[in-house]
């Protein structure tokens, strides 16, 4: 036990003396949370929409007023009026505008006569997010335009009444569980296994391999000190990250305790996974080369940024074995739904068993020689 503590002490003392490392491992994931949270989460605004009115009737005028109302209020798009269709379409093809709405010559007449009046929308569909936003807004606008001033008293239309169980979740909150796991993972990458590889590269390991320390003591020492660092970064994200993401009641004690439990289990799982992956590696460049890829392979299939239900089957298989999936799931329960311990049990079990297996296999594979 004392030997394990000595390895932990050595590592943590070194860590404490490297403020840059502390800042990198604790604060960078926060930056990531904010940048990603706002990069993905926002509503599309100020798309440039060309309007070509070839009708000039009163109903067309009303329609154009509605466009302007959207431009002034929701600001999904700004309208630009074109006199002729050719110029508008050329500007669309050359990327100066995102779409063209054309009000055809007979629009007003057909509208007043009830003869299926049609509007045309030509859109730049290379950016799905923009085109979806544009179509959505225009569809709403048309629906409002079509509404009768006095609705019929009896309607045969079926409607859906939606009950939302939780308050509105902005994307940055949706991303927070993933960011917590990522912060833990970043620390796991710079702790544990890679410390031993760096020791090997510098020859420091010869120093302690000649002492009577056992394999498992060495591995536990490295993993536990790595886990301590990962837990610290995780806790920064759990507290500061929750505040930044605007999670309601971020310092609820019961939730913090459950969060802590998740952070500890996740840290142990990820750090032992990293140690296992690095157990036979000696070249200090290898971990640096695989970290980027590993990050992508583990983070994105976990459902942290996009729902697993949208993945192709092969990617779902990755997400089933990926410890990130369970960690992200557990944190989502806590951050977004503030559940009790019950729904976390499968996640905690998976992560715990994963940690034990990874560490045992690492101990078997570890070579206590040069």
């Amino acid at each position: 036990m004392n030997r394990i503590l000595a390895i932990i002490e050595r590592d943590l003392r070194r860590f404490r003396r490297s403020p840059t490392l502390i800042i990198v491992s604790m604060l960078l994931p926060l930056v990531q949370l904010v940048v990603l949270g706002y990069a993905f989460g926002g509503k599309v605004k100020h798309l440039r929409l060309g309007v070509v009115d070839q009708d000039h009737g009163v109903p067309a005028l009303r329609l154009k007023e509605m466009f302007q109302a959207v431009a002034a209020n929701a600001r999904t798009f700004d309208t630009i009026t074109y006199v002729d269709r050719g110029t508008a379409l050329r500007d669309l093809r050359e990327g100066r505008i995102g779409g063209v709405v054309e009000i055809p010559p007979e629009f007003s007449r057909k509208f007043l006569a009830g003869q299926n009046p049609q509007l045309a929308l030509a859109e730049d569909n290379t950016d799905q997010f923009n085109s979806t936003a544009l179509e959505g807004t225009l569809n709403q606008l048309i629906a409002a335009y079509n509404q009768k001033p006095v609705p019929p008293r009896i309607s045969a239309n079926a409607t859906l009444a939606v009950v939302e169980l939780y308050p509105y979740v902005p994307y940055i909150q949706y991303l927070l569980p993933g960011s917590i796991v990522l912060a833990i993972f970043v620390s796991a990458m710079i702790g544990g296994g890679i410390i031993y590889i760096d020791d090997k590269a510098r020859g420091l390991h010869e120093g302690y391999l000649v002492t009577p320390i056992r394999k498992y003591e060495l591995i536990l020492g490295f993993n536990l000190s790595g886990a301590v660092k990962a837990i610290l970064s995780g806790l920064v994200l759990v507290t500061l990250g929750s505040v930044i993401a605007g999670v309601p009641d971020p310092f609820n004690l019961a939730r913090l305790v459950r969060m802590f439990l998740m952070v500890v289990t996740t840290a142990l799982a990820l750090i032992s996974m990293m140690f296992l992956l690095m157990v036979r590696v000696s070249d200090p460049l290898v971990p640096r080369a695989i970290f980027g890829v590993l990050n992508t392979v583990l983070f994105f299939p976990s459902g942290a940024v996009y729902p697993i239900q949208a993945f192709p089957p092969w990617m779902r298989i990755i997400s089933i074995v990926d410890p990130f999936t369970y960690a992200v799931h557990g944190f989502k329960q806590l951050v977004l739904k503030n559940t009790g311990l019950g729904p976390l049990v499968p996640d905690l079990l998976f992560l715990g068993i994963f940690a034990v297996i990874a560490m045992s296999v690492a101990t078997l594979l570890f070579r206590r020689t040069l």
Partner: protein
Amino acid sequence: MADIEVSQLTKRFGDFVAVNELSFSVQHGEVFGLLGPNGAGKSTLIRMLTTLVPPTSGTARVNGFDIVRAPNSVRQSIGVIPQAMTSDLDLSAEENMSIFAKLYGLPHERRKRVIQELLKAVDLEQWADKPVKMFSGGMRRRLEIARGLVHEPKIFFLDEPTTGLDPVSRVAVWEMLERLRRERDLTILVTTHYMDEADKLCDRIAIVDHGKLVALDSPLKLKASIPGENILEVSFSSLPQDWEATLKALPDVVDVKSSDHIFRISSQNGPRTTVALMEAARKAGIQVSSLSVQSTTLDDVFAHYTGHQLRDALQAPPGYAVGFMYDRQ
């Protein structure tokens, strides 16, 4: 019983034989030197004896424990100073020592006492709380020697303890080792490629070349074992026919070796041979370009037994250069 007993110990890395059937024993209280050029197999031998590298064949016992069957008992009884500096640069001298004391399982009280004593013994007391990255090479080496003694081992292994140190630091390390040995009743096995170091420090010296033991005795006896009292190193402006035979025929000459137009002449009487040599050169009409006369040193012993000077050679590659991702030793 000897403190270290090595029998037919061999280590191969693929086709490369780093240590080739070495056998010797080191008695209690002895300072035993392994002398050889870089790549002779000294470090591999020390790494086998300190349980860092498993031998390919043969056996060795350290403090009575088999290095393969009872590695942890071996580790508990030895102190090791590897060739590379292994102290943590970010930690202070005292922290470095304390962590190793904990790795050896020393209880708190004893830890404190031993660390103070040892830092004093290696003259680093006043730097105890300074980070090692501020230390010079010599200070760092002294700290590592202190660290290697923290669990009060009986047998002390040092792999080239003074390589890379300036002459003053080297002498300081020698004196410290000598004192520690007396005070702590240590058996020391030290490798070096410095002749003067081996000469000054060691009770007995094993000369190792290409993984094989080529000579083993005390420095005095080794020096006495080779012919001649003096060595003349001489070169000439040109070389007449059968010049080597002429040199061999000079008075008191025991042996002549030549390489690169430099002749090494072993002589029982340096001054007399020198005079005769000058005379012979004058008669042959050639000039002596350079000449030096020395007493026999371990260098000469080494050259005598190995047939060459200390020189560089290939050594076993470090682990991570061997494979692409994984080491395969």
